[in-house]
């Protein structure tokens, strides 16, 4: 019989080894999946993981890596703080949309005035929009005890409808010949989140993501609030005795994750995407949940996990055009990764013992 014995403390070695192991298992099972749908497995894996970095056209894909990783890391850092404290914001996708809408709205309101103050104002508006959207589940939870998981998720659908309404109505480009979508912010220099160094993919969002990683690291290891977050997640009763106010913690966690998701949305709409359009959101808010777990809710881990996820996005695109791999296959791939990761967590928290057990 196999028997589980709870470890008194989660194993450090396993907590680092499990994400790597999960990635390896996902690659193996993924290859089997690809061959099952009639695609060459080795070529598919190589296309996804190798070609974007070292292939023939890597010079084109490497900047893309930063562009895709930045929003994922930015959102996942915010989510990880909440997940640690047991506050489940799973509506980052909605906060991302609202951040983009409010930021782009501010920028478009100034059109065509040029000024250095416009982009900073947009950044503030983006963060504020995301924060506000996340405050809805936050305040409802604090005031009425409403489940934040369900409310934040419902608000994603509301935000999607709002996005459609905005790109067809209020924010529609008046010179767009009736096509849906706003003016292109890339053609409005004061509002454009341009690359800081041309050709590298390095834009303000990437910088913000790096700052968020450092900020979160310091918060969690050096600050009282970070200690409270960890305490509330691991031992709720002890947290109360330590003077943690649960309500303030809930509002802080939701607020910060909303603001970061809003920022991610703003940097995307003002930079790589360029405009508000119906299909602006591509699921970063949900993939960021996987990134947060894959990074073990640790800032540095999230940075690495974000880069890996960005790689699968880009590699998936290449595999789609070169091998005809369906785009859904990458979604399956990412979902599988989360599964293996969570299941392997068993090894971190439990010891597996072989031998006859005495009680069931």
């Amino acid at each position, binding site marked *: 019989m196999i028997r589980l014995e709870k470890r008194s403390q989660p194993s450090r070695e396993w907590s680092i080894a499990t994400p790597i192991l999960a990635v390896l298992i996902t690659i193996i099972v993924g290859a089997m999946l690809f061959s099952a749908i009639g695609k060459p497995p080795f070529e598919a894996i190589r296309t996804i993981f190798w070609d974007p970095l070292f292939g023939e056209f890597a010079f084109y894909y490497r900047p893309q890596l930063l562009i895709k990783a930045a929003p994922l890391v930015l959102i996942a850092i915010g989510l990880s703080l909440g997940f640690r404290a047991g506050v489940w914001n799973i509506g980052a996708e909605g906060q991302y949309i609202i951040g983009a809408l409010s930021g782009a709205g501010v920028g478009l309101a100034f059109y065509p005035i040029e000024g250095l103050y416009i982009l900073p104002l947009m950044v503030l508006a983006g963060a504020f929009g995301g924060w506000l959207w996340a405050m809805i589940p936050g305040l*409802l939870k604090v005031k*009425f005890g409403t489940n934040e998981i*369900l409310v934040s998720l419902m608000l994603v659908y509301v935000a999607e409808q709002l996005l459609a309404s905005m790109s067809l109505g209020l924010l529609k480009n008046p010179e767009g010949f009736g096509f849906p979508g706003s003016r292109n912010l890339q053609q409005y220099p004061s509002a454009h989140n341009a690359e800081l160094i041309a050709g590298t993919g390095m834009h303000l969002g990437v910088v913000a993501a790096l700052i968020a990683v450092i900020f979160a690291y310091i918060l969690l290891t050096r600050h009282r609030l970070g200690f409270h977050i960890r305490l509330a997640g691991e031992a709720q009763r002890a947290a109360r005795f330590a003077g943690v106010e649960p309500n303030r913690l809930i509002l802080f966690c939701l607020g910060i994750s909303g603001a970061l998701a809003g920022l991610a949305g703003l940097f995307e709409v003002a930079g790589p995407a360029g405009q508000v359009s119906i299909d602006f959101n591509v699921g970063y808010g949900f993939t960021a949940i996987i990134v947060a777990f894959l990074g073990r809710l640790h800032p540095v881990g999230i940075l690495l996990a974000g880069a890996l996820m960005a790689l699968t996005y880009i590699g998936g695109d290449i595999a789609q055009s070169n091998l005809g791999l369906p785009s859904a296959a990458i979604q399956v791939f990412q979902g599988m990764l989360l599964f293996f990761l969570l299941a392997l967590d068993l090894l971190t928290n439990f010891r597996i013992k072989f031998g006859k057990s005495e009680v069931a």
Partner: protein
Amino acid sequence: MDLSAINPALLIASLMVAATPILFAAIGELIAEKAGVLNLGVEGMMIIGAVAGFAVAVESGSPLLGFAAAAAAGAAFSMLFVIMTQLALANQVASGLALTLFGLGLSALLGQSYVGIKPPKLDTFDIPILSEIPGIGPALFSHDIVLYFGIALTFVIWSGLKYSRAGLVLRAVGENHDAAHALGYKVMRIRILAILFGGACAGLGGAYISLIRVPQWTQGMTAGIGWIALALVVFSSWKPLRTLLGAYLFGGITVLQLNFQAAGVAIPVEYLAMSPYLITILVLVILSADKSGAPAALGRNFHASR
């Protein structure tokens, strides 16, 4: 704007159709939650049921076979959740999210070749005599058999939970798993069965969307209905008959806003389309003060250490 174009009999009939997927998913989740398991993967299990039911119905030409396959597929998919939470003792919230994310991707992959196909039609089952009542008869009593099965299932579960020994054991496991374990009940086995039942019901609900309500297959077609079902369980404070009521209420809202869209009410389409989600939030707020119905061990994993 022409509200008189909305036909009340037709409205009730389509309300019942719109409510059925939510009812199936919610009643399945209710059983799982009564056993103390919070499965946030309802949306994922539904869409797996939707695609599996659709594929089997198209290939075999029999919608009922499609529904059977959807229930089996939903249960099989929920087995992943069983492995995660009951065997690997992973966090239930995270595992449920994983199930939903994975299910949405997998269904899109599986359903690729079924986009744009019409599924075989399920005949309506006219309840004798009742369906001949003029006016409300055809609206209430002339639906497909699966819809009636959903209602019957709700009543069976209600009486089962209330009057049967099995229902009592299920509730005991959900209220206090340590005590239930001490009494000699197989906590893990009971929870696994509850999760599988929830998966089968969610699968049926999903297939009802792709085979009857829409009816066709499109990627991500469940559009949050699984999440609304989760909210509905809270709304009904874990009581089956209130779940039925709630499902019809939400079905009514969905149908009404669609009718408003068609009738050209002065509210923009996007704002009408967000109304079911906003109303779900509103209802959650109003009812979340009362948590007395929640199973005490909801969302907590059980590990028999000694």
